[in-house]
């Protein structure tokens, strides 16, 4: 419950007004009228779930509520929570604990890839796993230095090349080094890119292909996405998935007031599990994902 509390605290700022109106509804008794459902839809839209998804979910909840003759608002809210939680695809395997494993981190600029790699490396290292990190972000200024500092903090070896080097060849080096040292968990950071940039997506495709081909251990490609992302997040995920055949998603920066509703659409449409969520700055704040708690945080204070 620790992160749920944290998440709720962060989220409560914006949700206060909604919760108040919900409370009013509760006090008014089990009146499930037009306004009630409109409010639900509004909450979901304000949570970045998207107009279409919000409308669909509320319509189906409303339908079920009528059929089952649900007694009050609380029962409807529980149903809504279940419906949202069910949208998420379950992970079959956790690439950060089911070892050996190699994970490539991809995403748009500023999503939080480097920080996530750093935190995951530290967590695994502290657990006693043999970890290796690779810096295939050879484009952004000082990205290598940034990861370097994370490597130092975690006490984990980092494989890198000079800025401007071919990222695919860096991955090649990382895998080789991993084989030499017997690393169980290999984490590779890539440079952020917009999904609309054809050339950069092709470059990334090459990086992923080389890694998948060369690696002797299972490879996962994980999309890192900022929770504040709006509806464009789905387009982003679609494009990355189309080019790279993603395995899962990590949602970062859920400690603000953003609710990350876009994750619902991404997980549902692309059938991608959410591996982790970031709910704060510290290393412990990168947590396992629980669909029900996420759903609850999305709809209640």
């Amino acid at each position, binding site marked *: 419950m620790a992160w749920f509390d944290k998440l709720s605290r*962060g989220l409560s700022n914006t949700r206060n007004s909604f919760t108040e109106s919900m409370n009013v509804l509760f006090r008014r008794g089990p009146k499930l009228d037009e306004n009630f459902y409109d409010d639900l839809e509004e909450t979901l*839209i304000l949570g970045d779930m998207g*107009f*279409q998804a919000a409308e669909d979910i509320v319509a189906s909840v409303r339908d079920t509520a009528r059929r089952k003759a649900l007694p009050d608002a609380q029962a409807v809210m529980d149903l809504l929570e279940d419906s949202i939680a069910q949208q998420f695809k379950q992970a079959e395997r956790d690439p950060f604990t089911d070892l050996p494993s190699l994970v490539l981190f991809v995403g748009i600029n500023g999503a939080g890839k480097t920080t996530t790699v750093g935190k995951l490396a530290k967590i695994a290292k502290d657990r006693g796993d043999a970890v290796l990190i690779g810096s295939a972000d050879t484009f952004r200024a*000082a990205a290598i230095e940034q990861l370097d500092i994370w490597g130092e903090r975690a006490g984990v070896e980092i494989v890198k090349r000079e800025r401007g080097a071919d990222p695919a060849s860096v991955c090649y080096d990382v895998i080789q080094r991993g084989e030499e040292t017997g690393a169980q968990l290999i984490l590779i950071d890539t440079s952020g890119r917009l999904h609309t940039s054809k050339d950069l997506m092709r470059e990334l495709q090459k990086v992923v292909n080389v890694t998948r081909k060369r690696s002797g251990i299972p490879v996962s490609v994980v999309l890192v996405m900022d929770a504040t992302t*709006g509806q*464009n997040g*789905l387009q982003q995920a679609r494009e990355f998935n189309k080019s790279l055949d993603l395995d899962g998603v990590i949602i970062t920066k859920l*400690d603000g*007031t953003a609710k990350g509703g876009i994750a619902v659409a991404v997980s549902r449409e692309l059938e991608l599990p959410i591996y982790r969520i970031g709910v704060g700055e510290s290393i412990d704040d990168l947590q396992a994902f629980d669909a029900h708690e996420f759903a609850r945080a999305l709809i209640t204070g």
Partner: protein
Amino acid sequence: MFDNLSGRLQGIFSGLKSKGRLSEADIDAALREVRMALLEADVNYKVVKGFIANCRERCLEAKVMQSLNPSQNVIKVVLDELTALMGSTNTKLILSSRIPNVIMLVGLQGSGKTTAAAKLAYRLKRDGHSPLLVACDVYRPAAADQLQTLGDEIGVKVYRGDGKDPIAIAKTGVRFAIDNLRDVVIIDTAGRLHVDDEMMDEAARIKEATDPDYIFMVLDAMTGQDVVNVAQTFASKVDFDGVIMSKMDGDARGGGALSIRQITGKPIMFISAGEKPQDLEPFYPDRMAKRILGMGDVVGIIERAVEMADQEQAAQQAERMLKDEFTYVDFLDTLKQVKKMGGLSKLLKDLPGGDKALASGQVDEGELDRIEAIINSMTKQERMKPGLINGSRRERIAKGAGVEVYDVNQVIKRFNETRKMMKKMQGMVPQGKPGKGKKGKKGKGGNMRQMMGMMRSMGLDGMDLSKFR
């Protein structure tokens, strides 16, 4: 599932256009689509509500309903309201006489502050200022290194201070600027969450210590509904003066631009759209509104062309065109300019309907390179006298460029079409004698003609993109 906003509204309005008169129900149907499109564009729910209500009221006015062409009027109402929402005129960055001017950047983590700081410095330097970048992000590992690297690339000095206390760095940074004759200081601060009171206080203290002339909030164009909470808090804690929208080169519609203006009243100052230092452009609300409505940002393209084009070269080319001596040399110059302006897709995106063409994958950037290679494989004489190119020469050119003869023929065909078009245009433009007296004025006109020719030669006339495949 989600069409982009331009495509969506184009769809709605082409439906409206085919109808003569509109009923109240028609307007509601259209506005429902507008509402949905705006929500998908991440315009805040509450802002959308108000917007739609306003539009509806104005659409139902008698003069719209009873006018000869009500659908045109509906478009106009929506466009006007959109523009008004974003602030009617563009806000220019005007530096005061104070030396140095201080500009401070704030924003969430990963919004693009450091990149924006470098781009802003580049722009100011280009405009004749001598900026200083100050690295106040002491939290993110290697943030100062990043700014340093970017500063080195654009030739702007970066002040890093002791790398520990952001307030002290900011203060001594301003001092450093005075001692080193820098007239603008750009302070890059750490990314911070609006709910992190401690960090928000820090931002307020940096502000207090440096008394900035401008505080800009950097906002990711992809930000969703939460933009309202973020902007509101930043506005109340540090009272920023304007917004820089980042990552505008993606396909996010940037609905946040609408929301932020409405909620905080602060103008959008710049948009940042690309990986290069020069990819920072002023924000024009009217153009943005038009772009959202699928009317294209033609003015923006022409301005970009004027900015990029080598004036003298353009003047010469214009003169040559007027004398009907359009050669492969000119053709090549034109190609290079398209590339300079950010390539075909950037150009296209700003044109009406361009989004659609881009989305359907009809644009092949490699095509420009191929044409360039083909022209480069021609001899000097061939380039100046296109008539010389016969069958065997075509074969040789194809070999030199590593393409098929068919490709060479295509380029020749396109060149001839462009040439023909130039000739036609001569009849259209007033024939000023290409003399030497008023060169400045000539140059400008030349640019316009060149632009039109450029678009036509790229197959953009009438959006017939098939020519370009």
